[in-house]
């Protein structure tokens, strides 16, 4: 059972704000790693493997939805561009 009352939109907004606030520190210390953020507790776990980072966060913060970002990563343009056309893209 997920322990969170946030909508996906709220999760994205809070996660993005947290990342921007901590961008310099995260990029200095965790470049290339996946940061899995509990946006309510304002805490995070990191790992180079995304699944491990998620499992660490789940163990530390409980069964909830996380905001995930790979520090410093720029995704190659591919078919994902078409996803932006949808109004319900988060």
């Amino acid at each position, binding site marked *: 059972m997920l322990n969170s009352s946030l909508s996906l939109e709220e999760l994205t907004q809070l996660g993005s704000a947290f990342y921007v606030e901590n961008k310099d520190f995260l990029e200095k210390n965790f470049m290339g790693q996946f940061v899995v953020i509990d946006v309510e507790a304002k805490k995070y776990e990191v790992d180079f493997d*995304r699944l491990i980072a998620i499992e660490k966060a789940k163990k530390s913060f409980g069964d909830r*939805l996380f*905001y995930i970002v790979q520090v410093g990563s720029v995704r190659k343009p591919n*078919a*994902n561009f078409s996803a*932006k056309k*949808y109004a319900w*893209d988060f």
Partner: protein
Amino acid sequence: MLGIFNKNDQPIIEVEIKGFGGAAKKINALIDSGFNGYIQIPFVEALPLGLILAGVEANTLADGSTSSHLVCKGQVCVDGKCIDTTIDIEAANIVLLGTKLLKELNKTFILNCAEGKVEITENTQIDNNQHA
């Protein structure tokens, strides 16, 4: 394991995706050497599998814009080898197999466009052949 080129000359290989509830489905995935992720599937494939939602991931695209997508946990099998991994769920109706997943599976991707050959093999097989 052999794949094929589709009519658009894109390399396609069959993979199996499993949810933790036991549901599984074999689907054709486009091997995207420029996709440095794990695997991306559309909602229409993800929902029946009962994958476990882990969160939302943000991406900065090469044009500077950002987008977000759902990230689930599930199991992916390629060439008989299965691993627990994370799966990107996108609106785009396409299945992409990325380089991180092939790396975790210890696979070698062989692409011979001239002969229309697509193959994924265990990394050790290539090493043995090279040293034979």
